[in-house]
């Protein structure tokens, strides 16, 4: 499946993107010969028949695990390998936080259904869920700048993943934290609500179920019964969804990375498209497909671990 998708993307990318246009209209203008000389060794020359281009590209992957180069000659392999971890650095913390906050709030508001706490939490989540990430990010940037000005020094950095020239263990951590705080906050702010609502409704279904009443009839208090019996069963579908989102850690967040100038996978995606980097685009798509597949496998494993009903006897 992944192979089919990747190859299809390759042809689609050639149908829409034109590496040649990167060079047309340059000052001073490049001659046709110069452009071909630039493109041809990178397997990006549209004068070569498409099938031949495809074979060069495909055999490169199959035999040498070489995903090609960008129009400027950078190796796609290196780019992906490097940017994947930049994205992971950003997304890992954000995913963890928004999952925990979402599930926690879901449990809180489900056990206080229709009371003030539930209504406040729900109202807040509805608002945050509907804030576009761009607005959230830019809003946070403005707040952070105002905060920096107020205290008179740079506490929060609003661009980049790290400052140049920082070395040593603790200074690096502090520097990273200063950079990572804002994008993480933005991602958590708009992302946690989905888990909040999912967990709340699933838990509510289970709180009303017979076995929770049975657990209370055994002598557990309502809170104990909810925590032990209802939560465990309602976590199964939530975990499935979380497992699906884990690969997203590596594929990155397109808009957030662009706004905060993190050179991660998301930003790479935009960059490859705008620069007609066919090999890059295809690599991003293939990476995404592999990650989705891994997510599905993780979700299955999670269900098997949590739910004895699907274990094969």
């Amino acid at each position, binding site marked *: 499946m992944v192979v089919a998708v990747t190859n299809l993307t390759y042809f689609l990318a050639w149908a829409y993107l034109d590496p040649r246009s990167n060079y047309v209209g340059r000052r001073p203008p490049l001659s046709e010969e110069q452009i071909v000389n630039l493109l041809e060794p990178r397997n990006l020359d549209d004068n070569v028949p498409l099938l031949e281009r495809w074979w060069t590209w495909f055999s490169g992957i199959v035999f040498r695990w070489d995903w090609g180069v960008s129009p400027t000659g950078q190796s796609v392999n290196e780019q992906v390998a490097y940017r994947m971890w930049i994205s992971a650095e950003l997304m890992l913390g954000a995913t963890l936080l928004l999952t925990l906050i979402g599930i926690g709030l879901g449990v809180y508001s489900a056990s206080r259904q229709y009371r003030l706490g539930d209504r406040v939490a729900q109202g807040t989540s509805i608002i945050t869920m509907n804030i576009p990430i761009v607005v959230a990010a830019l809003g946070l940037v403005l707040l952070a700048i105002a905060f920096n000005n107020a205290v008179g020094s740079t506490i929060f950095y609003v661009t980049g993943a790290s400052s140049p020239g920082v070395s040593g263990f603790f200074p690096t951590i502090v520097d990273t934290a200063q950079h990572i705080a804002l994008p993480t906050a933005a991602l958590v702010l708009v992302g946690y609500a989905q888990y909040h609502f999912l967990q709340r409704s699933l838990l509510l279904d289970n709180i009303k179920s017979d076995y929770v009443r049975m657990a209370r*009839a055994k002598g557990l208090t309502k809170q104990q019964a909810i925590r032990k019996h209802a939560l465990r069963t309602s976590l199964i579908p939530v975990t499935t969804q979380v497992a699906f989102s884990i690969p997203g850690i590596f594929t990155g967040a397109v808009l957030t990375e662009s706004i905060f100038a993190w050179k991660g996978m998301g930003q790479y995606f935009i960059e490859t498209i705008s620069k007609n980097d066919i090999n890059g685009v295809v690599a991003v798509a293939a990476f995404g497909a592999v990650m989705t597949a891994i997510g599905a496998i993780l979700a299955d494993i999670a269900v098997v671990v949590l739910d*004895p009903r699907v274990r094969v006897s």
Partner: protein
Amino acid sequence: MTTPVLSVRDLTVSFPSEAGRVDAVRGVSFDVGQGRTLGIVGESGSGKSVTSLAVMGLLDDNARVGGSVMFEGQELLGRTDAQMSKIRGNGISMIFQDPLTSLTPVFSVGDQIVEALTIHDARLSRRAAWDRAVELLRLVGIPRPQERVKSFPHEFSGGMRQRVVIAIAMANNPRLIIADEPTTALDVTIQAQILDLIKTAQRETGAAVMMITHDMGVVANIADDVIVMYAGRPIEQAPVDTLFADTRMPYSIGLLGAIPRVDKSEKRPLVPIKGSPPLLVDLPDACPFAARCPIVTDACLTAEPELVAVGGHADHRAACVRAEEIRAGRLGDDPVYPVPEVPASTLETVPRELRKPTLEVENLTKTFPLLKGSFRKKKVGEVHAVKGVSFDIREGETMAIVGESGSGKTTTLLQIMDFAAQDDGDIRIVGTSVADLQGGRAERELRRDVQIVFQDPVGSLDPRMTVFDVVAEPLRTVGMPAADVGPRVDELMDLVGLDPAHSDRFPAAFSGGQRQRIGIARALATNPKLVVLDEPVSALDVSVQAGVINLLDELKVRLGLSYLFVAHDLSVVRHIADRVAVMYLGSFVEHGDVDAVFDDPQHPYTEALLSAIPVPDPVVERGREHIVLTGDLPSPTDTITGCAFVSRCPLFQTLDENERVACETKVPALSGRTGVHVNACHHR
């Protein structure tokens, strides 16, 4: 007299709702003494379950509870959840209705029993708790408890799960066990096992039992005292013998009159209670039963009658202004309920052999392949859902198929409805063999003659179609001119006892019994010869059920219909059927005229099945011997060489070695008086 274990006084429960305050329980008082069993009977919505949940303190937070609940001298109402949790599962424990949903699916049964033990005794070691769990499982009759204790609930059958629930309820030697419809979701043979088990649990722990049920037979079987509830109030309260022998309140009389009896052959029509229970919102100060009561007087409408002692017995109390006039269900010389007329059929005078067959089934077989493998499904075996079933139904005749769930009754019906061609047999409907059907047109023609009524009156009607459209749909399908459809729908509505003026309403506006009547009207639309009824009354309350059964009886006579009736309730079958077949694991084990089979059951399985049904008469019920089958229905995937019933057969246990050989190696064929009464047992 010692202080009762539980003493409830003037219990009231109300819930807020959109229509106003719902008074679900309106003043219930009773005592339950040690070792005694109190039965609370009533139909759905009578407040019996709410009463039990109020005692347990398990009602929703928005419920308002008033009155007093004293458990061993302590007031329970007004306690916090934390305080109540010390008593729940320890002093009072509860058995819920549906064993399929009352165990947490992700924990092993052992874990769930251990939890019930350790939550009340923190000093109990894990080891000791597990040992006790195994011990409890053995006590409730789970085979191989050492291994089964680690199983998860989905690995148990419904009856087994209910045993686990009872084990949990017994775990801490409670003084009071509340059982809320513990057997309603179970088959009769399992019901008999569970009722026995509850009695065992009571003997072991000396507990008081509160048994909530809608089944008068269960009450007669297990209860010492009975409360009949209606519209949130007890309307009659008495020791069990008095209640059945000297019923005073018209509603209790109606409940008893509405149930068919498995032990009596008389074909008297059942006495339904007309109407439906009132909504419990803003009840007027009048007898809540007045609108349905056949002997209502003006005095009934002036004030709600109090529950007072009647007949000079302090322990027999009824809430009826005319209770003193009523003796044992009769008012003077007349029964309280007028017995409805039953029209006699002209067909009944014609001998069975001379009537035309409407359905002939020969050697009906259905197997499902067992598949294995995740990508390429390999066939690893077959499930024989139905094995070589043959029968015929004549004009104006009702044939019933009975059996436990999983016995293949519904599969048989679906095969007939599907017009499934048989490899080595045949299905003939009014003389037309399904094997001869060529093309969709012939099939549609034949489909007019066979119609079906489903079990669930809620799920089988499209909620977004008006009743008119529901009933008219089959008419339009068979191409009736539009001008004729309207009058025909009115005629059908009238036929099933519904007001034709209501046919522009949606199904949601009708009660369960009325919806089932709509389902019947739809089935009759095309003037079928044969109506297939799949558990048509099992989802209905008894008082409503009687009305539907009477309707079916009447329609059969008026329209000359034949019924193929599938049910697990043998009392209903005895009442409605002319012929009956008992099905076990896909085959008929006994087949014949209904009275022959019920009065002289020959196959050990039929015997057990019949004896398992509690009779709504405490005197008869105490004298009856129940044959309690051990174990569950074997899985249909097992390969069985001989008689399928061997694993549970009580007769087999009494046979000597030589006689057993036949049971274990030879599949028994149906034998006996052909066409009248046959059974499939080597030794009967």
